[in-house]
């Protein structure tokens, strides 16, 4: 019997419409729609798309939690063997949606999930560890090449073929280090590599050093005494009793708090939501995490122009700071609109 597969696409590929229809709510259609037709062809009868879930990109991204839940409910009755989302190419919100829903399906339904994206799609960084993301070109012209790869990988995953290799199966490496026996000994490989390096020929390192994710530094502020400075923290400082219920680790949201009339953060009114460290010191004196007291004094002394009337707070543990990218863009946009000149971001 052929495997049953569920396919997720956005409103565009379902032929509902472009940006103007991105608000549509999740719907389910029997059988394959749009790219699913190509996936079915590539399955060559070994598997079949039993239904297609369609959701508008805006709707999904603005109601991630609700949309995920709705979709999971919709597809549950189909008892599928695998889930395919996209491909999303370089569409950022479509990529995020594909990644989010594929991950949720994988975790709650315990079936393999595959999606496809262009390497620079923000969804890649967010989900490549958890998901098999087939690398595609940056636009729909790559559909012809993407679908057979996604189909083949899905078939492999469903049949539990263990040996997957990103260079063969076309997915973006997930960063799992796996042993295997090479053709040559390490010493032979080392000497080969050295010869290539000496001759300026290309070679492939067997362990790429972790690279720093970089962005151009913002321009320095010219006149501090006129600058509007905002405070942002991943140390989880929130008003007492955590009104926004910011989670204690790797939070999925952030809080915006007015500090216009606040001179310093005291333990009476503020606390930390951060669960990653001993909270006593931060609860006693929240200025130890968000230095409002010092900044107010500097404002009074005219060293800085002004303090942005809101501070933004979330909880990030260590490297998880990275995954807060989605809402950091939102915060960034607000700061930009409000004419903030510089940001002091504190992390624990």
């Amino acid at each position: 019997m052929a495997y049953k597969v569920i396919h997720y696409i956005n409103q565009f590929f379902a032929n509902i419409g472009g940006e103007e229809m991105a608000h549509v709510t999740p719907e389910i259609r029997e059988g394959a729609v749009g790219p699913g037709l190509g996936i079915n062809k590539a399955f060559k009868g070994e598997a079949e798309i039993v239904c297609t879930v369609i959701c508008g990109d805006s709707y999904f991204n603005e109601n991630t939690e609700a949309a995920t839940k709705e979709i999971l409910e919709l597809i549950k009755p189909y008892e599928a063997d695998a889930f395919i989302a996209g491909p999303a190419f370089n569409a950022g919100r479509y990529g995020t949606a594909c990644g989010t829903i594929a991950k949720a399906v994988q975790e709650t339904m315990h079936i393999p999930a595959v999606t496809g994206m262009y390497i620079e799609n923000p969804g890649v960084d967010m989900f490549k560890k958890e998901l098999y993301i087939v690398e595609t070109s940056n636009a729909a012209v790559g559909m012809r090449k993407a679908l057979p790869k996604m189909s083949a990988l899905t078939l492999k995953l469903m049949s539990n073929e263990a040996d997957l290799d990103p260079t063969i199966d076309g997915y973006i490496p997930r960063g799992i280090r796996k042993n295997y026996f090479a053709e040559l000994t390490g010493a032979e490989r080392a000497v080969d590599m050295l010869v290539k390096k000496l001759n300026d020929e290309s070679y492939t390192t067997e362990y790429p050093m972790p690279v720093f994710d970089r962005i151009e530094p913002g321009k320095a502020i010219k006149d501090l005494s006129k600058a509007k400075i905002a405070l942002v923290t991943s140390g989880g400082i929130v008003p007492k009793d955590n009104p926004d219920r910011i989670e204690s680790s790797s939070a999925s949201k952030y809080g915006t708090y007015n500090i216009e009339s606040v001179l310093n953060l005291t333990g009476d009114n503020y606390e930390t939501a951060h669960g990653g460290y001993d909270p006593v010191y931060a609860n006693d004196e929240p200025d130890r995490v968000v230095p409002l007291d010092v900044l107010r004094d500097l404002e009074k002394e005219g060293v800085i122009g002004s303090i942005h009337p809101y501070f933004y707070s979330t909880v990030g543990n260590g490297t998880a700071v990275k995954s807060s990218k989605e809402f950091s863009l939102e915060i960034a946009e607000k700061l930009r609109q409000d004419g903030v000149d510089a940001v002091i971001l504190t992390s624990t």
Partner: protein
Amino acid sequence: MVKGIESTGIPVAHICTIVPISKTVGANRIVPAVAIPHPLGDPKLVEEEEYKLRRKIVNNALKALTTEIDDQTVFQ
């Protein structure tokens, strides 16, 4: 977070306890803090001393924000 904000062009001074992590998340202006439970303070110090310490770190951050840089820089 740092990258997200700085992608709009607003300079960010990242006061953090774990400099290597700050580097890996792509911060450009890095200001080392005191320690994890209290990045901008030290409960062992008396109040005024602690304020001074905090002020020193904030001043470092301000110095970072007014310094033109091309590459990741740690401001001590």
